[in-house]
Each structure stands twice: as structure tokens, then as C-alpha cells.
């Protein structure tokens, strides 16, 4: 094992990079230095986080690399971080996507490069910190601090309706998370502990659990987002700059799913049991409804945003099945969606940078001019549909297998959603890529350049890798998920 504080270094390295960037004076010549510094920092963070994975002990279901310091003298709040099978891949996802985001905004962010990179590095710190915290107060602080850089990213570098979108994003998510704050304090009052480890296994009375569950639900359902709390998502996605959408879809949505697994399942099992029908209903409505909405979109980004809500519906079904297949499927689906939707947004970014429009009608016949782009786009599109061999398949397949144990209605709903996802994604692909070029403006559009290849090809490889060797990812998380399921069943058997 490693005897230096690896997790803290990973959390705070981007922040240190941000501090360094703060002191680089910004002008025409030095803005490239700012970008380079940001890229180096995030790459360094990614490499360090790979050490986490390599040194990870697969046979240990609880937290590893733990660090614990007293933080407040009067209450039992600790600076307590660590990694287990569930958070490992969330952290990897964050550290993997951030350098890609910085590369993706290399040329298309022209104003206020310094503030942009500062926001992204700060965002990376809080994302990793949130997934790594074992103390709930620490978790909450990171959870809410995410809003600050995201608000700025949407508001400063976003599209035309960016102000509306950024306010909606901020206030919507804040409303959910302040209720969680009250729930956290109630939990602390009942147990005098803020440790996630401790609270998983020390349960509250049934009625308390119900209220706590609703408070956490308010926060995570907005974040993930579940129908009908999803309305902030299309706005935020459409208005955010490409890299903003990537992080939003790739990591921030996973905070909701992660929260459901940790808090709702882990700490409030009896209440979860009570609310499972609600979650299933909302998820199926989300899958079917948002898939149909996605079908009707004329804006590519909006279409992908709605497809995110549908995919997250599969995730919530998987989580609340509370069996091994369901949870593994949900985790796989989250990782897969993190890669695929991020890649899709990057693909949209590629053509948006060239044509400055996201209207589907504007495009058509891109394969004639951009064969390489068409290929990469296809991989991600099929990943989103869930074709066997891609990452999307593993997650959806596992969730559906798990759902058979629960109820065949859920299976029908989920399967129907998957069919619909094929419909809207293939239809989108057909309209953008196939056919002949009818729009003259597209006549001399260029294929993806080296920088874009560097961004998209690692993503394509990991999507396929995830589809072919899912065990590479499932093995580390298996025991941690089993632990949660065992605790859940013990609590509900009483």
C-alpha cells in the first residue's frame, strides 16, 4: 500500500494548479501557458488516480486509502476521505474527463481563458472530493461547492439563454441540496456521527427514515435528474459550452446516482423499501416520456440531454432493484453514460465549432466530407443505444436481468425505453451523417483534426473496452456493492 496521502493529493492537486494559474498574467501570449498548466495539472491528477486503481485491493469491500483528521473540535466532523469500489470509478471518470474537457476547449474558448481554467480546476477538486468523502459534512460541502464553478461556466461561456439556464441550474439544485443539509443535521443529532461508514449499519426509526429519505430524494432526484425534476437539465446542457456539457453529463449527473447508493440504500434501507414503487414508476415514466421528447427535438444537444434523462432512468431502476445485477448494471450504466454522453457532446462540439449551429436540419451527409468523424460518432451512438460490444449494453443488460427478479412490468418499461433510444439515436445519426450534402455551407467542412482525435479516440477505446471486458470494472466494485445489499437485506429482514 501507499504511505503518503494519495487521495488528498488527488483531490487538491487541481486546486494547487488553479492557484498557480491565478498568478499567471493573462494576455495574448500567455494564455497558451494557462492552458498548458491546466492540462498538465489535470493529466497529472489522472495519472495519480490510475495509481488508485492499480493499487486497489479487490478483496476489501470497505474504504481504502483512508485519511482521517479532526476538523471541528466541538462536533464529530472529520476530514475523512477514502475510496471504495463504488467511488473508485466515479473518481476515475472525473479525472479522465477533465483533461479531455480542457483539450476540447483549447481553441473555442477565446475570452477569459484564465477564469475558465480556474473554474474547471476548482470543479475537478470538488468533484473528486465529493466522491472521496467519508464524512457527510465534507460530502455536503463538496456537493454544493460544485454549483459555483458550474454556474460560472454556464453563465460566462454559454449560449444565448445562458443566464436563464445558469440561474435555473443553480437555484434548482440548491433547493434540493439545502433539504439534504437538514437531513444531515438530523442524522448527526440522532447518532453523533457523520461518518458514512458508521451510519451504514446504524439505522434510524422507521418514521425518521421516511423523512430523511424524502430530503435526500429531493437533492439527488434533482441532481440525477428524475422526471419530473429534470427540467433544468435540457436548458443547462444546451446553453453550456461543450466542455461544460461534458462534465455535466459525464460526472455531475452521477452525483445523484452515487448519492442514492450511498445514502438512500446504505443508510435508509427500510424507507427505501417503502419508496421503491415510487422510484420505479418515476423511472419508467422518465424513460418512456423523455425518449419520446428526445425524438421530437430539433437541437442535437437537447436531444442528447433528453436521452441522458432516459439513461438515468435505467440507472435509478438498477439502483432500486437492490440486487447484485441491478446495482452492478446501474454502476456500469453510469460509467458508460459518463463516457458515451460526454463523447456525444464532444462530437456535437466538433461540428458546432465548425458551423456554429446545432440544428439537426442544418446538417446531412456529413459522411461524405468527414468519414473519420462519422465512424467515431457511430461508435458512441451505438454505445448510447446499447449495442452488444459497447459499454451501454453491459449496463442495460444487467439492469434488465435484475429487473426480472422484481417485476416484469419494469422490464417491459425499461426495454421499451431501450428500443426508443435506438429509434431516436439512429434517426439522429441518419439525419446528420447519411445522405448527400444538401446544404452548401457544408461543402468544405473539414474532418476531425489531431486535437480532436486525441480527445475522441481514448473515449472510443474505453467505450469498447468497457463493452468487451466489463469485469475489469465490475470486479473492484463487486464487494462494495455486495456489502450494501447485505446490509440492506439484514435491515429489512428485521
Amino acid at each position: 500500500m501507499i504511505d503518503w496521502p494519495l487521495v488528498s493529493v488527488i483531490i487538491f492537486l487541481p486546486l494547487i494548479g488553479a492557484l498557480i494559474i491565478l498568478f499567471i498574467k493573462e494576455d495574448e501570449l500567455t494564455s497558451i501557458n494557462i492552458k498548458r498548466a491546466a492540462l498538465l495539472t489535470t493529466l497529472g491528477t489522472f495519472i495519480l488516480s490510475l495509481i488508485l486503481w492499480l493499487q486497489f485491493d479487490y478483496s476489501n469491500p470497505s474504504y481504502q486509502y483512508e485519511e482521517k483528521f479532526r476538523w471541528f473540535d466541538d462536533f464529530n466532523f472529520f476530514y475523512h476521505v477514502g475510496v471504495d469500489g463504488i467511488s473508485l470509478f466515479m473518481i476515475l471518470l472525473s479525472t479522465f474527463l477533465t483533461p479531455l474537457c480542457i483539450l476540447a476547449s483549447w481553441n473555442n474558448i477565446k475570452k477569459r481563458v484564465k477564469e475558465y481554467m480556474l473554474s474547471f480546476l476548482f470543479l475537478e477538486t470538488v468533484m473528486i472530493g465529493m466522491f472521496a468523502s467519508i464524512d457527510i459534512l465534507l460530502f455536503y460541502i463538496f456537493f454544493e461547492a460544485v454549483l459555483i464553478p458550474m454556474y460560472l461556466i454556464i453563465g460566462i461561456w454559454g449560449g444565448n439563454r445562458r443566464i436563464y439556464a445558469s440561474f435555473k441550474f443553480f437555484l434548482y439544485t440548491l433547493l434540493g441540496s439545502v433539504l439534504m443539509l437538514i437531513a444531515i443535521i438530523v442524522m448527526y443529532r440522532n447518532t453523533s456521527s457523520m461518518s458514512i461508514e458508521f451510519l451504514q449499519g446504524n439505522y434510524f426509526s422507521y418514521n425518521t427514515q421516511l423523512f430523511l429519505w424524502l430530503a435526500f430524494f429531493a437533492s439527488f432526484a434533482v441532481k440525477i435528474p428524475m422526471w419530473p425534476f429534470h427540467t433544468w437539465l435540457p436548458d443547462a446542457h444546451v446553453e453550456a459550452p461543450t466542455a461544460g456539457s461534458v462534465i455535466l453529463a459525464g460526472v455531475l449527473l452521477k452525483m445523484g446516482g452515487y448519492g442514492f447508493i450511498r445514502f438512500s440504500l446504505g443508510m435508509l434501507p427500510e424507507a427505501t423499501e417503502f419508496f421503491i414503487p415510487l422510484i420505479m414508476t418515476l423511472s419508467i415514466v422518465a424513460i418512456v416520456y423523455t425518449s419520446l421528447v428526445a425524438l421530437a427535438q430539433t437541437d442535437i444537444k437537447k436531444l442528447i440531454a433528453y436521452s441522458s434523462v432516459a439513461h438515468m432512468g435505467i440507472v435509478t431502476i438498477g439502483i432500486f432493484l437492490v440486487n447484485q445485477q441491478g446495482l452492478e448494471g446501474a454502476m456500469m450504466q453510469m460509467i458508460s453514460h459518463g463516457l458515451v454522453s460526454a463523447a456525444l457532446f464532444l462530437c456535437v462540439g466538433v461540428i458546432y465549432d465548425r458551423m456554429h449551429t446545432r440544428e439537426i436540419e442544418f446538417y446531412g451527409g456529413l459522411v461524405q466530407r468527414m468519414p473519420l468523424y462519422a465512424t467515431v460518432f457511430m461508435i458512441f451512438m451505438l454505445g448510447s443505444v446499447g449495442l452488444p460490444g459497447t459499454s451501454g449494453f453491459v449496463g442495460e443488460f444487467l439492469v434488465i436481468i435484475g429487473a426480472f427478479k422484481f417485476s416484469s412490468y419494469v422490464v417491459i418499461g425499461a426495454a421499451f425505453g431501450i428500443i426508443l433510444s435506438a429509434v431516436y439515436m439512429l434517426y439522429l445519426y441518419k439525419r446528420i451523417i447519411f445522405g448527400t450534402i444538401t446544404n452548401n455551407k457544408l461543402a468544405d467542412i473539414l474532418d476531425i483534426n489531431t486535437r480532436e482525435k486525441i480527445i475522441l479516440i481514448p473515449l472510443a477505446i474505453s467505450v469498447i473496452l468497457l463493452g468487451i471486458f466489463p469485469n475489469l470494472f465490475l470486479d473492484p466494485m463487486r464487494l462494495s456493492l455486495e456489502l450494501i445489499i447485505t446490509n440492506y437485506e439484514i435491515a429489512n429482514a428485521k
Partner: protein
Amino acid sequence: MLNNIYNIFFIPEIFLACSSLVCLLFGLFLKKNAFRQTSNLAVFVLLLTIFLVYYDSESNFANYKSLFSHSSFINFFKILALLGSIASIIISKDYFLGIKLKNFEIPVLFLFSTLGMMLMIASNNLMSMYLAIELQSLSLYVAAAIKRDSISSAESGVKYFILGALSSGILLYGFSLIYGFTGSMNFDDISFYLSKYDNLNLGLIFGLVFVMVGLAFKVSAVPFHMWTPDVYEGAPNSITGFFAIVPKIAAVALIYRFCLIPFENFYLEWSQIILFLSIASMFLGAIAAIAQSNIKRLLAYSSIGHIGYILIALVAANDDGIKAASIYMFSYMIMNVAIFAILLSLKVKNEYLINISDLKGLSKSNPIVSLAISIIMLSMAGIPPFIGFFGKFYVLIAAIEQELYVLSVLGVLASVISAFYYLRIIKIIYFDESISEGIINFKISFQSKIILSLSLFLIICFIFYPSLLINISANLTI
């Protein structure tokens, strides 16, 4: 105990009173630079007073026990008020020179007002409480109207005076009722007398309500807040800064002590009033601030909202509540010092900033200042990881300890609403495109810069070592 007559001069309040008079004479006999010199002397005097308050813990008012009391809570708030007035005198110096308002009386008025606040915080007797309130208010009435040739300043002074006098009258009437029914002016005696009864009689309830109304005026809790936005708007910016930073500290300490000492056994009676004041202040502060275009009015409503939060901790009425109040008050003071240090140095087209929309494009010309304002706004909105969050967090802990679930949910809902207008300022700074460059001018003196950097440092870095403040506030006894 006081061993000899010289020790009297080392009692902080007496020292401050004498030194204020010395300052007055000092300013009077100076031929030039009177304002600047007097301000410097005033800061020095206040620093010495902090030192005395900190060390002089035993002999303090030993001979005046029936009039003034002494506890760690009182000392904490005294030091807070003194720090606040030091900061506001320093940050406002350049502003006064900038608008050519060089009366040396201003720092002296601040000194007298601070003296009144120290007495207010320590008072243990209805009569001394009333006199202390009057001492601080009278100085503030004059300060609000100090810019004699400005109509708005005069108006704000008169408004403040009339409403303040009205509230003092109500307060005094309440005192007379309490005195009439309990036969004592002393907090401890009243408490002892009341401990024999299970219920308050009608007269005492009337007295209590009247006193609460008067105190609500002083802390500007809704529905007795009407004067606040107008006075804030009319008074010169630096006086507004003083209003926002210091008197609230004293008034909050006073309302805590009044509720928790004489009437500690009648929680139900006063907590209903405070509960209403708290909810109304939070929501009105949050909603009314949305429509404001004047930064001073916005900060006025923001301070009303903050008072609502502090009153939640009072409704909780437990040790955590006292701790929460002291942490919240500290964070409130720090944030207001920081924002006023910036506002008093920002000039738009050679005029000091008034309209929020004038901040447009600040992020281009002054990136550091924009970042600072954004951090302060986020902190005021209670977004972690800044200090404002911990203030709210401790208030919620206190409320939930007392099982005030509904109140805490209402509190966080109000904080979401109020987040909107704080975010609006960030939006204007960062999101709106500026029309022309270079009209915003930020010039800050070295001393103010130190104050500003120090308060920003505390806002940002509190999270790394919270125990420093929390250990102090955890041991406060009322």
C-alpha cells in the same frame, strides 16, 4: 476588586469614554488634517479598549453589578463590536476625504456610539440598558445626517431619529410595565421574581411585547424594519457601512440577553414573537431584495434576512444557539466589512458606486475585485466552502437540536430565495457584457487593503481551521 482609584481608568468602558472626550478635544485643537488624525487616534483608542476588554476580566464593573453584568458572551460581543468599528473607521477614511466630508466629529461619534454599544451589550438593568441604547442611537442619528448639504442624508437622519425615538418610547413603556409588575429593574431580580410564577400576568405580557417591539426596531426585524433601507440609502456610504456592521452586533447581543436572562422561564411567551419576527425577516429580506437596483438598499434587505437567521438561533434558546449566534455574527461582520471595504473604494465615472448595474464589466477591468465580490456574495448566500455557510450550518444545528424542523426548513427555503439576488450581482459582474471600458475605478488605501485582505482570508480559509473560532464560541455563557 478595585484596589485604588487609578484602576477605574482601566475599566474598558470608562477608558473608552474618557478617550472619546480626549479625541474630541484633540480634533478641536488640530489646525489641519483634523479628520485624519482623529480617525487614527480613534482606531488606536479602540485597539487599546479591545486589549483592556480582553485582559480586564475580573474587576470589570465590580462596583456596578446591579447595572452591568459580565460574562464571556458579553466579552465576545464587545470585542466583535470594537473590531467592527475599527474596521469601519479604517475603510471609511478615504471615502470621507473623497467626498470632502472632513468633520473630525465623525470618528468621535463612532467612538461614542461604540461606547453605547459596549454598555448595551453589558447592561443588566432596564435603566442602564435604555440609557446605553440612547447613547448609541443618538450618535448614530447625528452620523446619518452628517452630510448637512445633502437632502437625502438629512432625510435619512430625520427618519432614523423619528422612528428610533418612537421605538425608544415603546421600549420605555415596556420597561415601565415590567418594573411596575415585578418591582425591579435588575435582570437577575426580575428573573428571581418571575421564577415564583408559572404564568406571566397580562401586564407583564404587555411589557414583554412592548420591549420586544422596541428591540425588533433596533435589530431591524420585520415588521419593524421600514427604516433600514431608507436610512441605508440616504446616509453616506461609509456611515451605512458602520450601520450595517456594528449596531447589529450590539442589538443582537442585547436581544439575546434580554430574552434569556429575565424571561428565561417564559420561553413560550417570547419565543412566539421571535419566531414570527424570524420567519418574516428571512422571507421579506429575501424577496424584497430581489427588486432592488441600489446596492445599499440591497444590502439593507440582506441584513434583514441575516437577522432572521440569527433569530432562529434565539428561538432555539440552547447552548448551541448561543454558539450559532456568535459564529453567525462573526461571519456577518466579516462579510459586511469586506463588501463595504470594496464599495467604499469603487468609483464609477468618478462617483461612488450606487447602482448595481454599474458593476457591469467589472470582471474585465478589475478581475481580482470581481472575484472578491463574488466570493463575498456566495458567502452571504451561504454556499460552502465559505464562512457564511458555517454560520447558517450552526444555526440549523441549534434549531434541529430543539426540534424546530419547520422553522429550519423555512430557513433554508428563504436562503434559496436569497441566493437569487446574490447570484444576480455575480451575474452582472461576470455575465453581462460591458458597454464601455475603464469607467470603473478601484482605488484602495493601504490600510483598507489590509482590512479587506484579512476579511477575505477569513471568509475563504475559515473552513481549513474552524476550531479557532468555534472553540471560543463553544464556551460562551450568557
